[in-house]
């Protein structure tokens, strides 16, 4: 950025904190849009120096000290008072009534007793402990010959990869758990198989080892999940808290890390049921981290790896693609095109490398075809078992799809594909449109002229390290797309709910109880675990289910049975939790009637699906709010360019005036309020409040000081409720 050419001393003394990416939608970029935000105040205690620095963005021309006006000082004085009030409010004992969650209490305790450095190691150690002890329980397909379950599938892949040449991996006996995951899983299986057969060859003897369930083998398999998780997912989470929560306090970062480390659904499926989802999710998360620090190529490669580990990551791909494409748009025709070509090259190349052993020089082309047809089986039915998605839900409640479309399954597949696409469209469009709205323009002659002007976004000359403005939208978009796939797509398994749950948990991780994001995140995650209850019950993981839900709810400070009836989500969660409890009780005391052996799974679907649908809708709404807060909605700033031109004109005029009278500080005040900047400030502040999950006007929950300040600006006329 050019502003570095003349860094304000005030910036050094009291730097203006950068907003983090998750909780609010004010990205750095947004704050630097000088012509949009009339206030760029600091969130921490104010000093005269920082007043000068923060007013710099309000005053487009550089030397702020010269232009400091009394009214501006007054303005900041008031903001500062507001901040202090809110800070003292937080320390108010009445605030202690809000359960902040055991994580925060523990982290506070650790920090207070000089154990700050131990928080992360201990948290990881305890989560490892919990993961391992979940693993003491049953797993998918335990002692159920002849086919067993996911555990046997994974073990079988280790067996076949170490004994067969690569070309036969996808063709060997497909009826008995033939390999149907992409090559990276196969490679990892090969490594695990090699290590395992070094320990005990009988675990992975070809054919002879089918159905091996010795304690030693179980121990080894569990250990592979734990090690891969520790290698991929845990570092990804740590990086996530460091990057996405980078501007927040270390306590919040620690709390977020712990919230994510004990995510019940993922832990139960990976370490109980037995799968390697955390590797796929961890790779996607690492890609997100890479995007956030501007390493787009690394991110693209990581996402390809994620896809190469489990094709399920395709659920994320529309949004990841849209994000990268959006970045190309954002960078403008020249830089964007260059980035696009590079990204395309990198992606294709990494796919080729990943599939290299199955490609022509090493194998006939049919090997690739076989693997593709194994990885994407379109021959199976619309849905398996009882999945809490749209198809199964409507199958029970409205009409029997299979009967109606008997013989015309192709139609059904198309319908599901169309619905899915429709489902993730808002996310994709939001990302692309947001990037388009905020695309960088080549520096105008005027901007070149006043090249020393700080905080003018037009003059970004080195675009790559700057976070893309659409970054805050990314988690919501990921949630939208994966949830839409879960709800509407073809051939969904109940474990697939893990994919939408990850972005939901990420969003939740930085939120405090009382926020809307928190309420939805916690509800969605608890219902997500609940929707897998039939599966977990089958695996003999009932106690683990109970323990993990208890543990996690207490950790994040979520009391499912607390009545929060003042909001829609509160009402919804009360109803859902009560019905969940009743369902569990019912299942405990009575056996399902002989006529409906699937009664409980069906009831489970009936409870879960509406929640998932609402989470999906909520994610779309939040996406719209966030994009509005970022750059305005479609049409709301249709005349942005003209406005910008006007402003530039005005600035030029002002500069001339300034030259004429270098001490005309009084004159500058009307220039601040008169240039149309304030016009939409009220709506914007409100939308910003909404976007960060708060009901600003009604004033509930903890408010970000900056948001309070913004609100003060907007409701200066005296919207009485906000007395401070």
């Amino acid at each position, binding site marked *: 950025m050019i502003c570095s050419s003349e860094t304000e001393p005030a910036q050094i003394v009291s730097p203006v904190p950068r907003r983090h990416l998750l909780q609010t939608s004010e990205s750095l970029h947004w704050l630097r849009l000088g012509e949009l935000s009339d206030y760029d105040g600091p969130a921490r205690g104010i000093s005269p120096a920082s007043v000068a620095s923060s007013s710099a963005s309000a005053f487009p021309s550089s030397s702020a000290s010269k232009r400091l006006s009394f009214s501006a000082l007054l303005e900041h004085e008031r903001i500062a008072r507001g901040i202090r009030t809110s800070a003292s409010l937080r320390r108010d*004992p009445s605030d*202690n009534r809000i*359960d902040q969650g*055991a994580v925060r*209490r*523990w982290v506070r*305790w650790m920090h207070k*007793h*000089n*154990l700050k450095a*131990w928080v992360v190691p*201990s948290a990881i*150690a*305890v989560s*490892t*402990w*919990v993961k*391992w*002890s*979940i*693993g*003491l*329980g*049953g797993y998918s397909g335990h002692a159920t010959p002849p086919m067993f379950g996911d555990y046997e599938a994974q073990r079988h892949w280790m067996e076949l990869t170490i004994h067969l040449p690569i070309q036969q991996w996808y063709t060997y006996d497909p009826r008995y758990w033939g390999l149907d995951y992409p090559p990276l899983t196969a490679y990892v299986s090969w490594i695990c198989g090699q290590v395992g057969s070094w320990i005990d060859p009988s675990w992975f003897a070809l054919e002879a080892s089918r159905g091996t369930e010795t*304690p*030693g083998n179980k*121990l080894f398999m*569990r250990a592979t999940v734990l090690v891969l998780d520790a290698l991929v997912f845990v570092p990804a989470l740590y990086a996530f808290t460091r990057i996405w929560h980078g501007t927040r306090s270390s306590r919040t970062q620690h709390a977020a890390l712990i919230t994510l480390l004990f995510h019940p659904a993922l832990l139960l499926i990976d370490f109980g049921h037995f799968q390697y989802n955390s590797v796929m999710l961890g790779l996607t998360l690492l890609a997100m981290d890479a995007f956030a620090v501007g390493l787009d190529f690394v991110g693209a490669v990581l996402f390809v790896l994620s896809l190469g580990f489990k094709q399920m990551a395709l659920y994320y791909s529309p949004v990841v693609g849209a994000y990268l494409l959006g970045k190309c748009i954002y960078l403008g025709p020249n830089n964007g095109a260059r980035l696009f070509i590079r990204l395309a090259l990198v992606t294709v190349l990494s796919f080729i490398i990943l599939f290299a052993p199955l490609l022509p020089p090493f194998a006939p082309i049919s090997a690739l075809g076989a693997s593709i047809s194994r990885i994407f089986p379109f021959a199976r039915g619309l849905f398996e078992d009882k999945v809490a998605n749209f198809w199964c839900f409507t199958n029970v409640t409205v009409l029997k799809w299979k009967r109606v479309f008997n013989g015309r399954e192709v139609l059904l597949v198309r319908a599901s594909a169309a619905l899915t696409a429709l489902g993730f469209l808002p996310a994709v469009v939001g990302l692309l449109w947001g990037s388009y709205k905020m695309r960088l323009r080549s520096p105008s002659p005027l901007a070149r002229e006043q090249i020393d002007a700080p905080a003018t976004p037009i003059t970004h000359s080195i675009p790559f390290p700057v976070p893309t403005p659409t970054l805050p939208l990314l988690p919501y978009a990921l949630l939208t797309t994966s949830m839409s796939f879960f709800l509407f797509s073809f051939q969904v398994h109940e474990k697939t709910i893990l994919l939408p749950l990850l972005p939901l948990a990420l969003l939740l991780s930085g939120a405090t109880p009382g926020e809307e994001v928190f309420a939805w995140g916690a509800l969605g995650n608890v219902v997500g675990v609940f929707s897998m209850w039939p599966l977990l019950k089958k695996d*003999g993981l009932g*106690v*683990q289910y*109970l*323990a*993990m839900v*208890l*543990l996690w709810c*207490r950790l994040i400070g979520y009391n499912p049975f607390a009545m929060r009836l003042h909001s829609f989500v509160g009402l919804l969660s009360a109803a859902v939790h009560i019905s969940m409890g009743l369902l569990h009780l019912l299942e405990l005391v009575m056996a399902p009637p002989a006529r409906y052996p699937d009664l409980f799974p069906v009831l489970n679907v009936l409870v879960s699906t509406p929640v998932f649908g609402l989470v999906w809708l909520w994610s779309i709404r939040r996406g719209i709010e966030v994009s509005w807060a970022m750059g305005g909605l479609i049409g709301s700033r249709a005349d942005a360019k003209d406005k910008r031109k006007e402003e530039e004109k005005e600035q030029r005029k002002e500069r001339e005036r300034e030259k004429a009278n270098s001490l005309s500080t009084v004159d500058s005040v009307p220039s601040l309020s008169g240039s149309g900047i304030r016009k939409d400030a009220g709506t914007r502040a409100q939308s910003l409040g909404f976007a960060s999950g708060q009901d600003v006007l009604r004033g509930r929950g903890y408010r970000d000081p900056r948001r309070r300040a913004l609100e003060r600006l907007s409701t200066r006329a005296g919207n009485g409720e906000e007395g401070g």
Partner: protein
Amino acid sequence: MPNSVPPSPKHARWPVIPEDDVPEQPKAPPQSPSPWAWLNIWKDTTRSETDLLLFSTAFKLLLFPSYRSTDFEVHRNWLAITYSLPISQWYYDTTSEWTLDYPPFFAYFEKLLSIPASFIDPGITHLRNVNYDAWSVVAYQRTTVMLTELILGLALLRFTRGAVAPFRQRILSASLFLHPGFLIIDHIHFQYNGFMFGILLWSILMARDGKKLASGVLFAVLLNFKHIYIYLAPAYFVYLLRSYCMSPSGDILPTRFISLANAVILVFAASFGPFISMGQLPQLLSRLFPFTRGLNHAYWAPNAWALLTAADRVLLRLVRWSGMNVTVHEQGITSTSRGLVGDTVFAVIPNIKPIHTFIITIAFQMLFLVKLWRAPNYKSFVTALTLCGYSSYMFGWHVHEKAVLLIIVPLRRSLLAADSYAYFKTYMIASIAGIFSLFPLLFTPAETLLKIVYSLVWGVMVLRPLYKQVYEFPASLPWVLLEQLENAYLAGFALLQAFVLVFPTLSGEKPEVEFLPLMMTSVYCATGLAWAFIRLSIIYLKQQY
């Protein structure tokens, strides 16, 4: 209480000190004390306390499917005995090899537990259903352990109220509730120690609050649950006699003496009465005190005898190597190397008989009891209690390694009473060595990770904050050296654990060296425990009360 009472412990008069954490609700103004007021624990339970309770519950739930020792079947069998047999046959039944060998209160307790058990799954209480391990019985028995352990939690909660040093008191209470010892022995290995120590702590709590009669009665009850606590009885006897039954000047207060004696006799009558009336007392006692076992348990409990046995092995090597003319007991050569259950016979050192261990134990205990007699207050009592248990552990006949809890648990209470760095260091050494000595109980690979990680995290959470609070710089060179030596000893545990983990792979599981890791563990832990014993004895004997 009348005014002629000997000076009751200071603690009884300490006001409730407010917590640093803001309690869930502001303290209510003192209301008229209801006799059941102490039962209302939720009234002023802080959020962090609820957190700890819920987390430990979640952890214990996760441990349901973990490894179970034969003790699990022992207790299941007792459920079956007490449920399906009339009381007259409880101590005669030999259907299973795991006969009932706990005092009658425990048998009644099992009878109580067996009623819901048979309702849940009749198979549990079926006498012939030996080695029954359906999910129902596992879940049920593990749940009873969890629920009865709440007695311990309650006692600890009461300890944190009205403590002298709230921070330290709370962290120690929490650490005791989440102690790796309980996790390993109760929730994995399977026993009811949490429940038992809960009663013991209630009794100590009563002593702290000046209700000495209640303290004595509770201890009598505890003795009738599990007679291993008889190791602690001398300290109780002296303390109650001196501070409750006698005035400070040394005059006996007959009414008090009689009321205490009556109460204790009543407890024993309730327990043994039915069996005495049936004339089964000799049979019962022969079950409770089987003097047919050897000096050491299968895995040597890390006490003085473990050190002596190890020394014997070394001497044997030495004798053979130098060709000295020392009589070597041939029987001893084979006996101790494998550590089988049975009589330990030394090869070089003269053999130890039960009477020897008995005399040594009593001699050490007398040392502390004399001190207690001179200073009969709460602080002194708790330390003496610890030391009584400690000397029995160090020198007792056929001590089981699980008995190390007898040291660790009361030691924690005595640490509260005196809060110097010397105490803390003693406690630290004894805790670490004690917990480590329990590791061989869980030999299955799946639980190895669990016990190590849990103990490490526990150590960091408990020892580090305390260490920062009480640390004192060693005053002179010998102390610096000692401190360094102790730290080196503690660091050695990491090496030892690495050795224990790696050794079976390296040695190729040869039967003749199989016992080596266990022996090393035992000797290493015994060194630390013996050193902590010496430290604590010196501190106690030198301290002015």
